[in-house]
């Protein structure tokens, strides 16, 4: 078939708004352009406000990664003040954050990603009837079980953080609620219930068994639970060859503690781990509807180009690390933390690898939560009072479910003078840069198969959703 262009949207089961323009040639994507068609302007709204207001406003960037934004804002303010939260407060903040990340991963697998396999395009496959029963959007049995388990899990946030999303409990000096021994017991019951969901439904086996997998080949033989069902589909559709990335990954490191984050930070490049040169982060504006020059977030501005002039095609800036794209997310985080299964998937970098990375992190996060909970001392101090300086700068780097999130803040005369945010999906779904290099997802889409009768190709949907984009954060 001859060349044609496709405009794919509205793109649902991703968080927020995404439009793809695809150039298709000979049944394959030849080039892809990811457009974030929404401009929001949170960075501009912050200017002139009391720095502490960031704790109220930035979580509201997102209804799904809200606690990640809280955590980044709180750390940026603490950094500006030159303090750390109390040790017990830090643990509770990590607990809240890890619950959100875990809930997001489970939501992604069940509600966003798997329902594509219940679509009529796959009728006739051996696994199709089971996919319909388990993962039909809005109806499937696995999906219902996941929604219920997730709602119960978020009781932990209700108890410690008041509500989900948009808690104000996470502060630069710790958390606003000191949990009692009774509260911790109650949280333990929520965690045990969630482990039961994971072991009965998602993995169909003890978490420790899944965590003992050391390679992608071993994982391919995993048969139980919804995870095993995914592996069956992945083998049949060759998802290990679909949507491959460039093999460069970054993680800022997750859940800061006194003796280092629970998941280690770093850059994965050329098959090895390196330290991140944070000064080498810059946002390229050549293909974003933004005015100004490529700059580090401490010097950057957000000036939307109301004329929306070309060659720009997205409201998303293009962050680069030393001029290169990096992929962020659960797979990246687990690679940089050195888990053997993730390391074995680093080069593959496919749809299958991203989903497996997320499943691995689900299992590991449950353990992290259990360990954190048992380490909290209810007699301890959960919050220090922190005075925010009249002038200063601060950086808050965290790992949201979807990857590395940074807040860069400058305070002048007691007010916010600059607030720049780079969200995970800004990295993954960035447009081209001034060298013409496509963003990570744009690159992964090249080569995806497009059927002659498809206007919204299934392969493209799998690739895009394997990244678990959060477009509302992207364009903050």
């Amino acid at each position, binding site marked *: 078939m001859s060349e044609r262009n496709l405009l794919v949207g*509205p*793109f649902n089961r991703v968080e927020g708004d995404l439009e793809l323009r695809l150039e298709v040639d000979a049944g394959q994507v030849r080039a892809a352009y990811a457009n974030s068609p929404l401009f929001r302007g949170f960075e501009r709204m912050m200017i002139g406000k009391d720095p502490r207001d960031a*704790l109220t406003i930035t979580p509201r960037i997102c209804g799904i990664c809200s606690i990640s934004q809280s955590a980044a804002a709180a750390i940026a303010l603490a950094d500006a003040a030159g303090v750390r939260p109390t040790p017990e407060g830090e643990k509770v903040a990590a607990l809240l954050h890890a619950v959100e990340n875990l809930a997001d991963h489970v939501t992604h697998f069940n509600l966003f990603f798997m329902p594509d396999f219940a679509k009529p395009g796959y009728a006739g496959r051996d696994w199709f009837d089971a996919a319909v029963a388990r993962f039909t959007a809005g109806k499937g049995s696995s999906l219902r079980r996941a929604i219920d388990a997730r709602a119960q899990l978020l009781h932990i946030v*209700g108890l410690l953080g008041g509500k989900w999303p948009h808690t104000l409990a996470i502060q630069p000096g710790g958390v606003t609620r000191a949990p009692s021994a009774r509260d911790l017991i109650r949280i333990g019951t929520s965690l045990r219930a969630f482990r039961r969901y994971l072991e009965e439904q998602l993995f169909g086996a003890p978490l420790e068994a899944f965590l003992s997998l050391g390679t992608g080949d071993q994982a391919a033989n995993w048969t139980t639970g919804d995870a095993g069902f995914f592996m069956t589909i992945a083998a049949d559709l060759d998802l290990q060859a679909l949507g491959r990335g460039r093999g460069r990954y970054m993680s800022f490191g997750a859940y800061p503690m006194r003796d280092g984050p629970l998941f280690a930070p770093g850059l994965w490049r050329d098959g090895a781990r390196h330290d991140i040169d944070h000064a080498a982060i810059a946002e390229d504006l050549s293909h974003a509807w933004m005015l100004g020059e490529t700059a580090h977030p401490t010097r950057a501005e957000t000036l939307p180009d109301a004329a929306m002039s070309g060659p720009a095609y997205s409201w998303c800036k293009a962050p680069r690390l030393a001029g290169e794209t990096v992929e962020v997310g659960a797979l990246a985080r687990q690679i940089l933390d050195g888990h053997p299964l993730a390391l074995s998937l680093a080069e593959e970098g496919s749809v299958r690898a991203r989903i497996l990375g997320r499943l691995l992190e689900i299992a590991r996060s449950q353990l992290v939560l259990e360990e954190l909970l048992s380490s909290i001392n209810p007699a301890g101090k959960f919050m220090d*009072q922190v005075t925010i300086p009249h002038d200063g700068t601060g950086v808050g780097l965290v790992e949201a479910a979807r990857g590395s999130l940074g807040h860069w803040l400058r305070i002048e005369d007691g007010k916010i003078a600059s607030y720049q945010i780079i969200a995970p999906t800004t990295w993954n779904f960035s447009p081209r840069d001034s060298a013409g290099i496509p963003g990570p997802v744009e690159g992964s889409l090249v080569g995806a198969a497009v059927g002659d009768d498809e206007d919204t190709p299934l392969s493209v949907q799998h690739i895009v959703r394997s990244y678990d984009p959060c477009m509302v954060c992207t364009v903050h």
Partner: protein
Amino acid sequence: MSLLCAESPGVLDLLEGAGLELLWHPALSAATGGEVRALLAQVESGALPLDILCVEGSILRGPNGTGRFQMLSGTGRSMLDWVTSLAAKARHVVAVGTCATYGGVTSAGENPADAVGVQYEGVEMGGALSRDFRSGSGMPVINVAGCPTHPDWVTETLLLLASDQLDQAGLDGYGRPRFYADHLVHHACPKNEFYEYKASATNLSEGGCMMEHLGCVGTQAVGDCNIRTWNGEGSCTRAGYPCINCTAPEFEEPGHGFTETPKFAGIPVGLPTDMPKAWFMALASLSKAATPRRVRENAVADRLVVPPSLRKPKS
């Protein structure tokens, strides 16, 4: 996404049980791309009836009134255009969340995107839709305000609509369903005893009432947050931080820090709306003088330090 936290039963069972068929939801539905465009075309042509149009998020009018800051992907049309068109076909229009109702946080600061609510711009009627807009049912836009909304506020509004039990008399002066908006966040707040004695927390994380120093406006804010609670047993004040009136228009610009109470001559401004100020001051000074040691000490501690004293029954 707070909707997914609905419980007993979960959101899918709630809607299905009430006979509500979800035509399309950006996070829950199977249909993507071309299938969605076809569905929207059917609604626009009138071939597919639209009982309830739910809108989440504010509507962006910028740049320069074009709405191009917010295009519905794949359609070449702005969300402003889509909402106007679909609202004209809908029996009911429901704005979900304070951004969709009044503009909310997305209209804060200089409001660079020119964000408005579906039928309000802050406290003023007239947003993406005009103040005179009425949906097929004759109702204005129903405003399920809250940042976030409680999942029950959304589902109960939809269930009331589906059973024809929500009419204009069921909405308050800002279009909010009265089943939750006739309550104040103050109702059932566990800090009520501290409020009674004006035993105030001086810092976040302390147990006392947060009205005097920490910006809490629970005595003025509508919402049954402390009656029904969130995500199990939660609420803002239960977690030790103030109510910031997120169900109200223009909550995003309080004119002071969210966690500080503006004062005039040492007296908080913005006292409870339906109480004469002089009475409030008189009662406050009396109750402060009468505060028991237990309440006074617990107010400034990060956990309960003085338990209630025990009294033996009279024999």
